[in-house]
């Protein structure tokens, strides 16, 4: 847990109205699509049209210590019962209803064309209790007068279904899954949407039931009202602890993006999400390396890799003296001409962190 002064906390609450780079170099997509040629930005050429897309990325979870599960005796039903009950208790303690409302307020205050969400948990306990991050968020947006008309693209991952007895016969029924979700503002035309699971996955078992940490990405192709085409990928890579998996998932995503890029006649390509890797490392290194060609928008917007640009990780859901201590969330892009705006939105309200990640928002401009 990091103890940072409240002054710094209030500082990170400020929006970082960063812009620009209108006088930089080119990112047009060459006919032969050599990868290295896609880096940079350029001034808009006379006689061409421009269009913009505002994209947000947000990991919705907080304080979820599921990693610890894998080092428990998961072949013992009583241990599983206790572990799941503890996790569920922790989950409830994170006040998910309050957190979803804070996130909805942030999204209302910072509207976007495309919202990319990660760790979109759904928890169903017993026969009656059910809570969905995304469904609650949408309801909250409606309640506070925010945008409500969305095209939703869901990728559900890692389902766990357990019905486990304790030592005296009480049973814990739990259905859980999480995943990635796109919310696409009505007004954009969704031309295509697909999703895929990475081949590289951490596998284990609970009571002989195969489960794992299966990560994936979803991809959409949209047309903005001005007529420009955009491909957007949303992903959540494996944790830094497992650097091998993180790197190889990044390689898979980079390859998928490259294939999609080859098939894209015109338009820009954007990768957003919780990449669980530090600048230039692991999965993000696979996407932004000299061979790959995605541009990391933070440094392009002039933000140094310091507290002002960090996006993660709050250790516990309560405590205003905590602060972000690393940058593992990204907005990457290629074939755009300008970043009209780039900001980090901290999700602290009073003592409550709505997520252990900050929300990132960028407005990209492309010419076509």
């Amino acid at each position, binding site marked *: *847990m*990091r103890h940072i002064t409240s002054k710094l906390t209030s500082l990170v609450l400020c929006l970082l109205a960063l812009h620009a780079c209108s006088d930089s170099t080119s990112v047009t997509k060459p006919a032969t699509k050599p*990868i290295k040629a896609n880096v940079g930005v350029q001034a808009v050429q006379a006689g061409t049209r421009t269009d913009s897309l505002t994209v947000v990325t947000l990991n919705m979870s907080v304080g979820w*210590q599921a*990693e*610890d599960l*894998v*080092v*428990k*005796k*998961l072949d*013992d039903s009583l*241990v599983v019962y*206790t*572990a799941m009950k*503890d996790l569920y208790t*922790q989950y409830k303690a994170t006040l998910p209803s309050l957190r979803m409302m804070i996130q909805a307020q942030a999204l209302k205050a910072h509207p976007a064309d495309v919202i990319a969400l990660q760790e979109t948990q759904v928890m169903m306990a017993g026969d009656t209790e059910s809570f969905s991050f995304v469904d609650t968020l949408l309801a909250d947006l409606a309640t506070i007068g925010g945008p409500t008309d969305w095209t939703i693209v869901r990728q559900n991952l890692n389902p766990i279904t357990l019905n486990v007895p304790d030592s005296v016969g009480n049973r814990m029924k739990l259905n859980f899954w999480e995943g990635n979700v796109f919310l696409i503002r009505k007004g954009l035309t969704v031309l295509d949407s697909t999703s895929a699971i990475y081949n*590289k996955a*951490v*596998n*284990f078992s609970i009571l002989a039931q195969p489960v794992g940490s299966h990560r994936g990405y979803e991809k959409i192709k949209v047309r903005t009202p001005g007529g420009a085409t955009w491909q957007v990928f949303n992903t959540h890579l494996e*944790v*830094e*602890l*497992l*650097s*091998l998996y993180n*790197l*190889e998932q*990044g*390689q*898979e995503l*980079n*390859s998928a993006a*490259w294939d999609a890029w080859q098939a894209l006649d015109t338009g820009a390509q954007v990768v957003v999400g919780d990449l669980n890797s530090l600048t*230039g*490392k*692991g999965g993000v*290194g*696979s*996407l*932004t*390396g*000299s*061979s*790959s060609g995605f541009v990391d928008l933070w440094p392009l917007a002039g933000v140094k890799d310091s507290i002002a640009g960090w996006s993660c*990780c709050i*250790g*516990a859901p309560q405590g205003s003296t905590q602060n972000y*201590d690393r940058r593992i969330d990204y907005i990457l892009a290629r074939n755009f001409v300008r970043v009209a705006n780039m900001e980090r939105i901290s999700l602290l309200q009073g003592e409550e962190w709505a997520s252990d990640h900050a929300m990132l928002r960028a407005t990209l401009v492309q010419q076509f």
Partner: protein
Amino acid sequence: MKNLLKIISVVYLLSLSAFADGDSLFSEKWGVHVTWAGGYTHYDAKDLNDVMQALEHQSSTAAGLNQYEVGSFHGHPMLAATIGVYREAWELALELEFWVEDFHQSEIPFYMNRDLDPRFPAHAHISCSDVLAPGFTPVQGGTAGCIQAEEVFTIVPITLQLSRHFSFWRDRVWLGVGGGAGVLAGNAKLKVQTEFVGKDARPNDTMKLTLYPGVNPVFKVFSEAGVKPLRWLGFSLQGGYRWSGMKYVEISEKKGDSFLFGLALGGDSKLSKGNRAYLIRTSNGQGDILVLRDAPTTAEVTQAKLAGNQYSLVKGDFSGWTIEAKVNLWWGIHSH
């Protein structure tokens, strides 16, 4: 000690008197030559050093772990023995070198909820003795523990050598040159023990791996200078250069499992016989990553290349110089 020196002196004087008739020390036309040597061998072993760096890098990125500090290795003390037959100034001998190198890493703690534990602020050192101390309880029902790792490399180059010597001063001093060819044999044995601490933690586990490098060619050249105070006994210094390497490192035997080791270094939580060591070499300066796995698929190779990375089989480059101090014993069979 004094008595030993006296005995050696008497034997030496007797032997000098035995040659007073003018016989040379290499007067036998045929004979058997046996040597025993101790020395040092130097090499680069780039891949194996990169493996150690990768282990350091991979563990340092892991939450809750301290930096896994490793040193590089560029050589070993060595032992060597030869047995050969000579005819006048030529000799054909079989040499067996024997190197052993031990690595122990006994301070690899892990603590899944470390970030939530005020006893261990960020960047504070945490040790195995901390998490294994009686009474230590991980916060929030978490799990901690300690990994003990030990690796023993045994490398045995065997060469058939042909040499020629030139003797001076009634054969009491000689110089020799030679070369040889053979095979590099050996293995590496890795033992990983993990102790888990915490409520309902997994049972402790132990895994033993034998890593086999295959059979690889060795070539060697050397020169030697020696003295021969007795017809049957001499001492020499030998310097040389050896070209050798390993084409791969493969799991040839596996006993038990290590859940965390397999998870961190395997393609899955299970390692299996036939898996080979690969380094994913990255182009962005983030450091290489070690993995034990089956051969990467064509798709994986392509994906890595597209990202500027490369799957590289771990090889061993043991080419380098050697220096040895030798004890020589001769047994003449047929005199002139």
